[in-house]
C-alpha cells in the first residue's frame, strides 16, 4: 500500500501535495523544471468568466518569511482556459486537477462552474470566495456566512463534480463560514487564502504594492493557517485541504494532524520551484522517523489529544 495516498471525496491522490492556485500557472511553466506526475494534484490558476488583466504593477512585495501579492486574478477567461490550457495540461499530467473559480457575482461563479463541469479534464471545482461581491458593496463572499452558503448552493446546483470552497482567513469566525459552506452542500473546504497585509517603504511612506493592501502568504502565515484548519476541522464533517505557509514535510504532517486530508503548497513554489517534489520525497523519511505507518492514520489526530 502507498503510505502517502489520500482521498478527497472518494478521489484518490497518490500523495497529499497539491500546488496552490496562483503559484503554478496552468502547469506549463513548472513542467520545465520537473515531471508534474509526481504531484498528488494541481490547483490551476484562478479563472473568471471573462479575460482579466489584473492589477497594475508593482504587484509583489516581500516581508520576513513571506511575500505579498496583488496579481488581481489575471487570467485569459474560462473559455480560453477550457479550450487551450486544459488539453495542454492533460497532455503532461494525469493526476487530479482542480479548477479554481473566481467570480464577482453569484451568476459569474455559476457560469464558470458550468463550463468546468463540462470539461472532462477537471476532477474537482475549487471555488475562491475571497473575491469582492460587486452587487453588495464589494464585501468578499467569504466574509459572510449567508453569502458563502448562497454561492456554494448555486454552484452545487450546476455540477456533479465535487465542490471545494476556498475560504478567506480575513474573518473573525472561520468555523461559522466553514459550517455555512457545508450547509450549502460543499463537498470539501480549502483553507486558507492569503491574509490581507501591507508593506510600506520606510523611506517614502509609500505602500510598495500598487493596490496598497495585498495578499500575504509564505511561511510567516503558517501558524494562522494551521489554527484555522484545526478550527474548521472541528466544525465540519467534510474533507479539508490545508494551505498556508507550507514549505516542508513536517508542515504537511502538522496540517494533516490538524484535520487536513490533503495540503496545498503556494508561495514556496515561487522561491523554490522544486518545493513540491522535495516535500513529497521527504515525507516517507519523516513517517519512518516518527514511526507513522501511513498518512491516513494521522488525519485529525490532534483533535483526539
Amino acid at each position, binding site marked *: 500500500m502507498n503510505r502517502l495516498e489520500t482521498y478527497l471525496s472518494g478521489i484518490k491522490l497518490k500523495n497529499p501535495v497539491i500546488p496552490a492556485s*496562483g*503559484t*503554478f*500557472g496552468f502547469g506549463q*511553466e*513548472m513542467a*520545465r*523544471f520537473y515531471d508534474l506526475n509526481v504531484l498528488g494534484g494541481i490547483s490551476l*490558476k484562478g479563472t473568471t468568466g471573462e479575460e482579466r*488583466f*489584473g492589477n497594475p*504593477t*508593482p*504587484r*509583489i*512585495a*516581500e*516581508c*520576513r*518569511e*513571506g*511575500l505579498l*501579492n496583488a*496579481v488581481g486574478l*489575471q487570467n485569459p477567461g474560462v473559455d480560453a482556459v477550457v479550450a487551450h490550457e486544459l488539453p495542454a495540461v492533460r497532455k503532461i499530467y494525469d493526476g487530479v486537477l482542480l479548477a479554481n473559480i473566481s467570480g464577482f457575482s453569484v451568476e459569474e461563479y455559476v457560469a464558470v462552474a458550468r463550463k468546468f463541469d463540462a470539461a472532462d479534464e477537471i476532477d474537482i471545482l475549487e471555488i475562491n470566495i475571497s473575491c469582492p461581491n460587486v452587487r453588495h458593496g464589494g464585501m468578499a463572499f467569504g466574509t459572510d456566512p449567508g453569502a458563502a452558503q448562497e454561492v456554494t448552493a448555486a454552484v452545487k446546483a450546476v455540477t456533479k463534480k465535487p465542490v471545494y470552497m476556498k475560504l478567506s482567513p480575513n474573518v473573525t469566525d472561520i468555523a461559522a463560514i466553514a459550517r455555512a459552506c457545508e450547509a450549502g452542500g460543499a463537498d470539501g473546504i480549502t483553507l486558507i487564502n492569503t491574509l490581507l497585509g501591507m508593506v510600506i517603504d520606510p523611506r517614502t511612506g509609500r505602500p*510598495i504594492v500598487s493596490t496598497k493592501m495585498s495578499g500575504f502568504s*509564505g*511561511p510567516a502565515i503558517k501558524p494562522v493557517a494551521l489554527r484555522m484548519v484545526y478550527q474548521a476541522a472541528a466544525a465540519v464533517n467534510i474533507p479539508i485541504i490545508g494551505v498556508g505557509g507550507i514549505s516542508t514535510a513536517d508542515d504537511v504532517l502538522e496540517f494533516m494532524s490538524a484535520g487536513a486530508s490533503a495540503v496545498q503548497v503556494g*508561495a514556496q*513554489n*515561487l*522561491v*523554490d*520551484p*522544486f518545493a513540491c517534489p522535495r516535500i513529497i520525497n521527504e515525507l516517507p523519511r519523516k513517517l519512518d522517523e516518527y514511526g507513522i505507518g501511513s498518512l491516513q492514520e494521522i488525519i485529525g489526530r490532534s483533535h483526539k489529544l
Partner: protein
Amino acid sequence: MTKGIYIVLSNCQLARDTWEMVLGGDTSALTNPGQFINIAIEGLYLRRPISVCCYDPGTITIIYKVVGKGTRKLSAMTPGDTLDVIVGLGNGFDVAKAHGRKIAVIGGGVGVPPMYDTARRLAAQGEDVTAILGFATKDVSFYIEKFEALGVRLMITTDDGSMGQKGFVTDALRESGCDYVMACGPTPMLKGVHRSGIEGQLSFEERMGCGFGACMGCTCQTLVGPKRVCLDGPVFSTSEVSFE
C-alpha cells in the same frame, strides 16, 4: 533554465555602490545576452533577479548596485562562498535580428551590464556597433575600458557632464546615425529611446515574484496583450511596446 549551486569566483567593487561578481557553474541554460539569473539570499524570502553581464562556458558575470538588504548581502560574499541560483531566465536580446544594421547598443546606469555581452556578441559577428553608455556621474561609471576593448564605437554621456558629453543617451543616439537600437536602462530612458522611432529591442525591469512565469507578478500591458516581463521578456521589440 536550471537551478543549481554556483560558486563565487570573485566579487569586487567597480564604482560607488556598484559590484561585479563572477560565478562558476553550469551555464548551459544561457542562450542569449540580456537574460537574467535569480539568486536566493540567506534570510530573505524572495530571490533577487539580476541581469547577466556576460557568460562564457562555466562562468557568469553579474554587475549589481547595492540598493537594499539583498544586494548588501551579496556584496559581502567572498570567493569560495556558494549561492543557490536559477539560471537562464527570460528571452534576452536576439542579436540575429540586428544583422546588417547600424546598431546602437544603449545602456543607462544599472542597465549597462547586459549591454556588454550584447555588444561583445554583435562585435564578434562583425556587426556595425555603437555603444552608448549613460551614467548619472563619473563616479558611478564602470566597464568603459571593457567596452573600449571590444573595438566598438563608444559614446559616453553623464547627467552632470563629469565624463563624456553632458546630457542623455537619447542625445547621443540622435547624433549616432544608428538605425537599430538595443537598450536597457531606467523606464524614462527606454521611453526616450522608444520615442526616437528607431526600430529595435528594449529590455525592461519589474518587481518579480518567481522570475519564471508562474506567479504573474510582473505582467505588463503591451500592444499584443499582457506579457510577463520575466518569461515573455525582459526584452520586447519596439513595435510591441507602449508607454501609454
